[in-house]
């Protein structure tokens, strides 16, 4: 589903990641771990075509990302759900509108959208808050809005950057259970986190980065 082949990314300050190789199978749930600055976010940005690799190839669902044209990228993004460390919610839109955004962008009708948005909000236990604005929510609630937005489109791949960073252990477990459900229907999930407890509890495949290099699978 997602394959990194000798991928490096160099910023002006130096190499963020160096010669990374891994391959995720459909339906797999994988944790990407390492200290702050190890390159976890960079891996996710490369996979989402937000950044371009300096070296190497990235294959997503049989597509070489470096061969994509600018116009193809939106359609690639519609196949994935992105969860960001800083949530990236629209502050002047309600929870409902935020979660609906990927579906509006993809051109779904309002009926479809309303149904799916409610279902997604239900899954992250936010059904009562759909008319609230993000600033009226706690960090954990905003995080869950971001998660609902990532799953509303039924993506084939979920890329999550510290999705449980602001959640208490119970909620984290809830979200992980949700992700596990997704993997059962074939969704591939890559989760960047430094929450060792969570990783140990889940007992899934782990990719460990250290200073931009892959140190342990």
């Amino acid at each position: 589903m997602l394959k990194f082949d000798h991928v490096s990314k160099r910023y002006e300050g130096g190499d963020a990641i160096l010669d990374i190789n891994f391959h995720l199978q459909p339906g797999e749930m994988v944790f990407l771990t390492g200290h702050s600055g190890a390159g976890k976010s960079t891996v996710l940005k490369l996979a989402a075509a937000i950044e371009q690799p300096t070296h190497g190839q990235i294959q997503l669902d049989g597509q070489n990302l470096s061969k994509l044209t600018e116009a193809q990228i939106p359609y690639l993004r519609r196949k994935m759900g992105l969860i960001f460390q800083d949530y990236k919610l629209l502050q002047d839109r309600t929870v409902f509108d935020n979660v609906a955004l990927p579906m509006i962008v993809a051109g779904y009708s309002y009926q479809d959208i309303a149904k799916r948005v409610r279902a997604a909000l239900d899954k992250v236990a936010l059904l009562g808050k759909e008319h609230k604005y993000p600033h009226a929510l706690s960090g954990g609630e905003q995080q869950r809005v971001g998660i609902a937005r990532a799953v509303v489109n039924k993506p084939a791949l979920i890329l999550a950057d510290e999705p449980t960073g602001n959640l208490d252990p119970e909620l984290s477990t809830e979200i992980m259970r949700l992700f596990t459900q997704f993997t059962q229907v074939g969704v591939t999930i890559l989760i960047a986190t430094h929450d060792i407890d969570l990783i140990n509890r889940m007992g899934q495949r782990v990719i460990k980065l250290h200073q931009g290099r892959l140190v342990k699978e």
Partner: protein
Amino acid sequence: MVKDKAPLPKKTGVHGVTMQPGLNSKLHAYLDAHAHALFSSLGRLTRAPAAFMMTVLVLAISMALSSSFYLMVKNFQQLTGNVEATNQISVFLKATVTAAKASALQEQLKLDPLVESVQLITPEQALAEFTANSGYGEAVNTLEQNPLPTVLLVLPKNALEDERGVQTLQSQLESLPEVDLAKSELQWVKRLRAIISLAKRTVFLLSLLFGFAVLLIIGNTIRLELQSRREEVQITQLVGATHAFIRRPFLYTGFWLGFLASIAAWFIVTVFLLFLRQPVQQLSEQYTGQFNLVFLDYAETLSLIGIASALGVLGAWWVLSSQLQALKPV
């Protein structure tokens, strides 16, 4: 607007259902999205009413100025319109020429191949007309003798096409012993025409300039709007929005600015003209009374609105095409 198309092969979703919405519902959603962008962009504009009003007014003033210049020329042009028919040579006869001699001359001139027709105006007719039309009737009555000469109005053949012919005729007429003065009106018609074509060209250039100003103002407004919504644009791109989708609300914003400003400009121009109407009427009565103030007609009003709206969309498009690339998410 660029229609969404799917360059990636359609994938069947992991849940066994198609991930793409159906064509019919997609079309509906597309129209919905347009309607939504149309009204939400207006709503967004009115959320900052002061800035919005100011922008629209600046635009409206630019448009009103160029429309006013246009109308000025159009009104002025009416004058030549009335003049074209009187493209004749006025031949003033010497005071010594008797009435009989004058009509003999009239008959003689009618035979000239360069002449279309000749009209004789006796001093009595001229005085009567002057008394009736000038408003100086009282003063005229105190005159002891008629000061007006006999006049032959000679209409040349092909007066408008054949300027040389008219000039030849004019000098011929002037050299006749009975003639005191032969005055062609063509000279000042020509001048007036030249002035009007100059004015028209000036109006055209000014309109280009004002149009460019409108483009810049709208472009700048859109640029600021784009900057203040930078994050929204980036997030929307991250969840799979095409450039067409991102552009849409901004293009509608440009449309609204141009459209509303043109309506405001129309009101400004109309109010202007209403103020001018009465003095123009009075002035006109002093002369022939044939001059009427003309307003923008339907076609002109529609073109004002159409051009302004198009400039709005164009200004927005212009900024978007240069700025959207810089707004890629990071």
